[in-house]
C-alpha cells in the first residue's frame, strides 16, 4: 500500500517532468526558429506564401463570424437596453465588447481551428513523408525554411484578422441596431465614440491579439514539428493544437484583461 502511494507519486513526478521537458523543448524550438541565422534567399516570397495560407484563407470564416456576432450583440443589447429606454447605448455595448474581448478572443479561437490545425497537419505530414529530414540532409535548416515563415505569418495575420473582425462586427451591429431596429444613428455612433478610447480599448485589444497570435502559432507549429510521424500521431497533434491553443487563449485573455482593464 505504501509502495503503491510512492509509485503514484513517482508517476506524478514523471508526468510533471515530461510536461516541463516538452515546454522546454518547445521554447528552444521557438528560439531557434526566430533567432538562428537565416542563410538562404527567397525568404520574402516564402513569407508571402504563408501569409496567403494563414491569413487570406482565414478571411472568409473571420468576416462571416464577425458579422453574425456583431448582429447578435446588437439584437441582444437592444432587447435589454430598450427596457431602460437607453437603446442608444447599443453602439457602445457592441463596440466595447467586440474591441476589448470578443474580437481578439473569437478571432484567435477561429484562427486556431482554421489556420492552426492546418499548420500542424501540414508540418506533421512533412515530417511523416521525410521532407524535413531530406531538407536537413540537403543542408537546409527546416526551422528556418519551414517553421519561421509560418510562425511570422501567423503573428502578422492574427492582429489584422482581428481588426477586420472588429470592424465587420460593428457594421453588423449597425445593420441590426440602426437599419432594422431603428435606433437613432447619431446616438448610436456618438455613444460609441465617447466610450471607446483608441489607445485604451482598441490598442489593448490589438496587443491581446498579438499575444494570441504568438501563442497560437507557436503551439501549432511546435505540435506539427513534434508530432509522432504516423497518421495517428498527426491526428493527435492536430487535436492538441486546437485544444491547447483554445485553452491558452482563454486563460491568457483573463490575465491580460486583469492587467489591462483591471483597475477600472
Amino acid at each position, binding site marked *: 500500500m505504501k509502495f503503491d502511494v510512492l509509485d503514484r507519486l513517482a508517476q506524478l513526478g514523471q508526468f510533471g517532468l515530461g510536461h516541463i521537458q516538452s515546454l522546454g523543448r518547445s521554447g528552444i524550438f521557438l528560439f531557434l526558429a526566430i533567432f538562428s541565422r537565416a542563410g538562404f534567399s527567397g525568404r520574402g516570397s516564402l513569407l*508571402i*506564401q504563408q501569409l496567403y495560407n494563414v491569413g487570406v484563407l482565414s478571411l472568409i470564416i473571420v468576416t462571416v463570424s464577425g458579422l453574425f456576432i456583431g448582429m447578435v450583440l446588437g439584437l441582444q443589447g437592444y432587447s435589454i437596453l430598450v427596457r431602460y429606454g437607453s437603446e442608444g447605448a447599443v453602439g457602445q455595448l457592441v463596440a466595447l465588447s467586440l*474591441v476589448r474581448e470578443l474580437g481578439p478572443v473569437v478571432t484567435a479561437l477561429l484562427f486556431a481551428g482554421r489556420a492552426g490545425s492546418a499548420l500542424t497537419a501540414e508540418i506533421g505530414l512533412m515530417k511523416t513523408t521525410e521532407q524535413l529530414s531530406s531538407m536537413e540532409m540537403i543542408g537546409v535548416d527546416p526551422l528556418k525554411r519551414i517553421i519561421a515563415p509560418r510562425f511570422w505569418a501567423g503573428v502578422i495575420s492574427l492582429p489584422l484578422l482581428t*481588426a*477586420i473582425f472588429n470592424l465587420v462586427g460593428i457594421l453588423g451591429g449597425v445593420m441590426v441596431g440602426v437599419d432594422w431596429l431603428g435606433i437613432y444613428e447619431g446616438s448610436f455612433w456618438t455613444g460609441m465614440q465617447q466610450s471607446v*478610447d483608441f489607445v485604451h480599448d482598441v490598442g489593448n485589444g490589438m496587443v491581446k491579439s498579438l499575444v494570441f497570435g504568438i501563442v497560437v502559432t507557436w503551439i501549432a507549429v511546435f505540435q506539427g514539428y513534434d508530432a509522432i510521424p504516423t497518421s495517428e500521431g498527426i491526428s493527435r497533434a492536430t487535436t492538441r493544437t486546437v485544444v491547447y491553443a483554445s485553452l491558452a487563449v482563454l486563460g491568457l485573455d483573463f490575465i491580460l484583461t486583469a492587467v489591462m482593464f483591471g483597475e*477600472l
Partner: protein
Amino acid sequence: MRMRTVEISVGAFMLAGMLALVAMAVKVSGLSLKSGGETYELHAYFDNTGALKPRSKISMSGVTIGKVKEIELDKNTYMAKVVMDINRHIDNIPVDSTAAIVTAGLLGEQYISISIGGDEAYLRSGDRFEDTQSALILEELIGKFLLGTVNKGE
C-alpha cells in the same frame, strides 16, 4: 502567375486589416487627428467628485470642449484634484468661471460643466478654477431632505 495572385491577395489582405484599424480609430473611437496635442491643462479642486472618471467630458453651454485627464487626491487639502484637457482653440475662459460636476439625466454619467464668469482675464494652461461645485450625491440629498422634513414636523 499563381504567385502573382497570391501576392495581390496578400497585399489586399494586409491593406484591409490596416484600413479596418484606421476605420476603428476614426469611426469607432472617434479619434480625430487634430485633437492630439492641441490641448492645454486646467485644474480644479472639488470636495467630492462622485462618479466622475478619467475621460469624462467637459462641456460648456452643452458643447464638449475637452475631457478629464486624471483625478487624484491632494494629500494636503484632502480635496480631489481634477486635471482637465481643454481644446486649445477655447482659449478665452474667464478666470472667475465655475466648474461644476453635473449628471446627465437622473442616472446618467457625470461630467464637468463650466459656467462662464465675467472677468476680462482668461485662464492659462496650468491655472485652476477657483469656484467649483462638487457632485450631487443622491443619497446625501435624500438624507438631507428626510432630515429637513423631520425637523419641520417638530
